[in-house]
């Protein structure tokens, strides 16, 4: 596994052929791709597991496609950031986490929330701004929460979730709990001080923190080579003294392997780990974005490496998935999303009398 690219500039091109994970080759960054691509996850029948991964990714894809329709129909408003194209990251990383672990995500977090197990109904109702939403209609698309599942948002300030994630990890370290806090953020967060402050703090205090950078090559409309002087993100993370490596974020099985390996070493007391997930969003930044800054051929190239299709093809090649099963998966997803939309439609609006609820724990705020 050789370094995937030069250190100064990374051309925006997909790496779909055979590149599972790429090491940064630094002292702390070792090859994550020791295991072959076709190796099953230990102790689980491969076919069944792949079906689950496929189902999880397709579920996110179809959910968001429905969101687009509902946005056009003005059922959903506000900023909506689609994860389409990046599903392998949330789904693969989630496989490495237990229900005891914590997740902090960004404003592009429908995928993370669904992968984490927040019911589609609760996420959809939140997009509708209904009282049954996972944030009681107060958060919307960018602020999905579920305290019971230890899903801490949904942060709309780029890099703003990182310090908070360090604190969740700090609490576990102080109490000796062998849990992992997983924080997702984008390549844009690399330009924020909060990323660097947190990376330093996490390494300094040996925090059980899994830093997952979803490098989709654009900070909104600014290409990475236009916002980072050094575009090798794993290299820079390694400079803080934590093991860091780059992963083909379009390959869900590679993502899972890397995340498992990272989570395992974190649980073993190894301190923070950094994964750069090389990925790409197929849609515009948000519903407002005319997507003028990307070359159409670039988008098409990356779409050719669609993580959903890729896993589908692989399972077909290996004779693990027939058309009938695929149809079955699609049907179950459609039924689930239909039910979620129907429930969101029917759910009550939060009462305006409750406007000031939850400002403080005293229920209504006194000023």
């Amino acid at each position, binding site marked *: 596994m050789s370094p995937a690219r030069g250190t100064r500039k990374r051309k925006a091109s997909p790496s779909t052929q055979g590149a599972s994970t790429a090491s940064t080759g630094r002292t702390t960054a070792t090859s994550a791709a020791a295991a072959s691509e076709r190796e099953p996850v230990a102790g689980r029948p491969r076919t069944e597991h792949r079906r689950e991964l496929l189902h999880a990714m397709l579920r996110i894809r179809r959910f968001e496609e429905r969101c687009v329709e509902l946005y056009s129909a003005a059922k959903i408003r506000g900023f909506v950031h689609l994860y389409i194209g990046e599903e392998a990251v949330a789904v693969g990383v989630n496989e490495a986490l237990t229900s005891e672990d914590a997740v902090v995500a960004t404003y592009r977090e429908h995928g993370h929330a669904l992968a984490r197990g927040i019911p589609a109904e609760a996420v959809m109702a939140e997009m509708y701004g209904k009282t049954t939403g996972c944030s009681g209609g107060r958060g919307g698309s960018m*602020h999905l929460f579920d305290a019971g599942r230890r899903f801490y948002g949904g942060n709309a300030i780029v890099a703003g979730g990182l*310090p908070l994630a360090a604190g969740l990890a700090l609490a576990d370290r102080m109490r000796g709990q062998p849990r992992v806090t997983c924080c997702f953020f984008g390549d844009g967060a690399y330009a924020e001080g909060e990323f660097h402050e947190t990376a330093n703090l996490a390494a300094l205090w040996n925090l059980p923190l899994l830093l997952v950078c979803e490098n989709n090559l654009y900070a909104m409309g600014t290409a990475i080579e236009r916002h980072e002087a050094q575009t090798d993100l794993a290299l820079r993370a390694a400079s803080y003294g934590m093991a860091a490596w780059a992963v083909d974020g379009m390959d869900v099985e590679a993502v899972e392997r890397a995340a498992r390996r990272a989570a395992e070493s974190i649980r073993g007391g190894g301190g923070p780990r950094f994964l750069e997930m090389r990925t790409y969003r197929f849609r515009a930044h948000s519903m407002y974005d005319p997507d003028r800054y990307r070359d159409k051929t670039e988008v098409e190239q990356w779409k050719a490496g669609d993580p959903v299709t890729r896993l589908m093809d692989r399972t077909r090649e290996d004779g693990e998935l027939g058309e009938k099963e695929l149809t079955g998966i699609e049907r179950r997803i459609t039924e689930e999303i239909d039910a979620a939309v129907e429930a969101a439609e029917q759910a009550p609006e939060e009462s305006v009398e409750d406007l000031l609820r939850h*400002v403080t724990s005293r229920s209504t*705020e006194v*000023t």
Partner: protein
Amino acid sequence: MGTGRADERKTTYREAMREAMREALRADDRVFLMGEDVGRYGGCFGVSLGLLEEFGPERIRDAPLSESAFVGAGIGAALSGLRPIVEIMTVNSSLLALDQILNNAATLLHMSGGQLPVPLVIRMTTGAGRQLAAQHSHSLEGWYAHIPGIRVLAPATIGDARHMLAPALADPDPVLIFEHGSLYNTAGELAPLSSPVDLDRAAVRRRGTDISLITYGGSLPKALAAADELAADDISAEVVDLRTLRPLDDETIDASVARTHRAVIVDEAWRSGSLAAEVSARIAERSLYELDAPVERVCSAEVPIPYARLLEQAALPRTADIVAAAHRAVD
């Protein structure tokens, strides 16, 4: 110990704050202190001196100069069930953590539909008077008092320094404590606590009938000195110490204005858009017909606080300014 009455003892504002933290750390192992130089150095203003030796480096946790990261870490630790006390060196440097305080600490409860209370205490120094110039001297607590979802405290007495921390830690929501730098060396008697401090209530520090001097924090000693001077002129001044800047205790302010029919608001922040502006607006809204004179405000000059002693003193509210404002209202 015990130079005064048997149940009172000599201490300072700094020691009282330290004693409050020591008590909290002893009482609850979820409590820990985190910030720049809180451990080996003993706190940049010496407040946590000696705590490292008693509680160790895990609970008296020196943090790098990363205000945003360690305030955010305090938020995360609070979400996870701990009770952090985060110390920030000055209110000016707290601006580096403003994202975490405003966008996370103050909003998570609401944004999550009530799922995520943040039981975090953040302490920091504020205020001028020590020739520390424009980046270490401002009074920005009024900005924080603008924000729904957080409680803002300004202990001005040794008693409040000693006794406001416990209820702040018991509050399920974020509490910001502003300690005026000029108060740390204040020495005096610490009376035993008769009942826990009610964080929703202002305190009337001196009763009076002719005018209300409404203030908080580092301006309280000046207002009390002004009340002494006014007494010599036969003007009976009441001194109201807001001590909780959010939520404001409207009832105490209303009651005082109803007694005296005149008000001077003393606030070391700049006048424009200040807490003094908020208090005077509320008096106008709630007690206009009680007033026998326009509300007066004594605030800092609208200038970055200068270094030179003469200039700095000229920029800040002075006792003489308060006395003059009171005379304008009464005469």
